[in-house]
């Protein structure tokens, strides 16, 4: 990679977190679940699974979604209710001293509000929601109106890298001076459409997924939403508040290899990480933990191991890493946002949650994947890395820093 402009003087600080997963709503429910090494994966209840090779997923209890209210479109879509539930746990607008024109929103998703659109196509009957709500970008527009954001409002949709891109682009908006605060994150709702699609690719595990385990046989789908409130650091500290973490670097890169299979060498992911490290102005030796994409498919996990070996060399075998997809499933457009949120919690709380489902580490993935029980994060670690890889070959990486 050539020499590039270094980081601007403004800093994107993480000041608040909100998350909804199959463990329930809220940061503590999520943290308790992943820290305990539990899996929220269970038999699917939302649609019949008899036609499929798998019958499990990580579903969110209906009670953990935002209630329909007069501030939402009526009746609201399931996607809106999920995204709003996480967003409302992240930001209290009245406590955020930022002008509407300086407040942005970046949302990552693979399906957006298209679930209702699919229902309409499949049933041939009129949708129960307004058609304009059943689009990719409808959730962001509704959410922006709810939280009073009048700066840039973007929907990012790059398959399973969407959430990571959203946080990275959100941090850019702060760092380049376009916004003083950005709500950045992602969401996706479990649907039969996606379940059937991944099964047609023979990508689903018959049981809960086991990332980096020798016996892994595929991924397990989940659903979720997570948001990070990003603010310009100086303004936060002027108010006497301490950031939870800093988004120090962001990078993306195309595999340029295949639409569904990752590049076996992991070179696209390695380019994305290298770009994020350059953006953070640090070297790979300064990374002390990696939140991997870790889907539990044979190809993905091996690709990541190759990428991390090329980036970190022999140290990859001693660098703590984990995957949360055996716990909350693969939440697609939400995954990168949930994992960025996890990284902020790891830095704040000094503990690395274990990888649910990992019992026999795959010798062909020679990484130090944390399994079994939590592991302390040494105080000396200042930077952690979160990565995502997606269909169509999009890779993305974030570097988060201990404030």
């Amino acid at each position, binding site marked *: 990679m050539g020499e590039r402009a270094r980081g601007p003087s403004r800093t994107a600080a993480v000041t608040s977190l909100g998350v909804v997963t199959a463990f329930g709503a809220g940061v503590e429910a999520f943290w308790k679940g992943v820290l305990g090494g539990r899996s929220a994966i269970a038999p699917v209840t939302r649609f019949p699974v008899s036609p499929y090779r798998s019958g499990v997923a990580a579903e969110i209890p209906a009670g953990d979604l935002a209630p329909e209210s007069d501030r939402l479109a009526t009746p609201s879509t399931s996607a809106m209710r999920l995204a709003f539930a996480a967003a409302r746990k992240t930001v209290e607008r009245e406590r955020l001293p930022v002008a509407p024109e300086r407040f942005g929103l970046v949302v990552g998703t693979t399906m957006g509000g298209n679930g209702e*659109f699919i229902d309409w196509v499949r049933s041939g009957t009129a949708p129960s929601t307004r058609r304009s709500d059943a689009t990719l*970008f409808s959730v962001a527009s509704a959410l922006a109106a709810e939280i009073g954001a009048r700066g840039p409002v973007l929907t990012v949709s790059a398959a399973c890298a969407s959430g990571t891109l959203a946080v990275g682009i959100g941090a850019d908006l702060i760092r*380049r001076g376009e916004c003083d605060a950005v709500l950045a994150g992602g969401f996706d709702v479990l649907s039969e459409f996606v379940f059937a699609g991944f099964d047609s690719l023979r990508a689903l595990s018959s049981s809960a997924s086991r990332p980096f385990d020798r016996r892994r046989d595929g991924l397990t789908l989940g659903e979720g939403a997570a948001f990070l409130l990003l603010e310009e650091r100086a303004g936060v500290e002027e108010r006497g508040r301490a950031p939870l973490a800093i988004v120090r670097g962001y990078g*993306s890169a*195309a595999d340029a290899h295949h639409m569904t299979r990752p590049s076996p060498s992991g070179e696209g992911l390695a380019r994305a990480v290298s770009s994020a490290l350059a953006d953070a102005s640090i070297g790979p030796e300064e990374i002390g933990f990696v939140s991997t994409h870790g889907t539990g498919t044979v190809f993905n996990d091996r690709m990541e191991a190759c990428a991390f070996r090329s980036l970190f060399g022999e140290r990859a075998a001693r660098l703590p890493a984990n995957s949360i997809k055996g716990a909350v499933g693969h939440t697609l457009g939400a995954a990168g946002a949930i994992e960025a949120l996890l990284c902020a919690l790891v830095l704040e709380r000094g503990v690395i949650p274990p990888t649910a489902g990992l019992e026999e580490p795959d010798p062909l993935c020679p990484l130090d994947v944390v399994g079994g029980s939590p592991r302390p994060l040494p105080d000396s670690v200042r930077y952690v890395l979160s990565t995502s890889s997606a269909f169509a070959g999009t890779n993305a990486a974030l570097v988060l820093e201990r404030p």
Partner: protein
Amino acid sequence: MTTAREVRVAGTGLWLSGREGGEPARPRLPVDVSRLRRMDRFARAGFFAGSLSLVEAGIDPRRPPDPTLGVVFGTAHGCRDSLIDFTLELGSSESVEQLSPALFAETVHNTVNGELAIAWGLGGPSETIASGRTGGADAILRGAELVRTGRAAAVVAGGAEGIHPKAVEWWEQERPSGGRGSSSAAPRDAGAALVLADAGEEAGAGDVLLSSATWFFEPDPSEAARRAASWIGEGLDRWKRPLLLDATADLGGLPSAWECRSVAAEFGELYGAAGAVAAVLAVEEIRSGRTGSAVVVSRDPGGPVTLLAFVTPRTG
């Protein structure tokens, strides 16, 4: 305000289906096009537009992938074409073995990024923005940022939309009610792209620069028009008398004294490709000498607004 003073337009590409939906003649491209048969309307429109812009920019296909070349594409509905087809297949199949994994693989909205990256060896930054009708303009703004900040030496950035017959049915039921330059023509497949590159120390007199850009959210149309007019007004000293390219016919409150070309009236409903089509036309207008500057105005009824200002170094 976002400034991108040193980003020049190195190439443009435009791909529009006919009014009745027929595809234009396929250009000869210096890349493997065997994957075209797997692409849906959205992916084809973006692939052709992006490829044409790369040809015009004189960029050859790269092997191994070049980490300095990026791709950013925008859309409103993305792969809805494949999404509809896979949904119909799901409804008519009795077992998962009857479903097409290749079709499901096309139901992500970053397929244009993936296809262009594979064909051309674009190994640099890759982002996909799906913010409704501003998607294409958003992608150009974001692509310029990636160049300006040194993350890429060049980025192919644009917008694409593919229109399934069911989407036309949708449009017929929610036909726009009208407005300045609004179109009654049905939606059509469209792709448009710019190759944005570092202008270096001194831009040539024949260059077109993406001089400034901004984006904001304003669901109230009159307030959106006020903010857009204010932003354009701030740049008038530099841009003199810019030609406005109204991509989406949704900002009727702009001052009527400003010369305006309505993309929607000329080309019909282009959804997320509209801003990128308008950007290509803006560059053509400046290159032809008909104007020294042009501002693309793009808005989605949901609230997003994106403005792009193009100039030639001759301006001012």
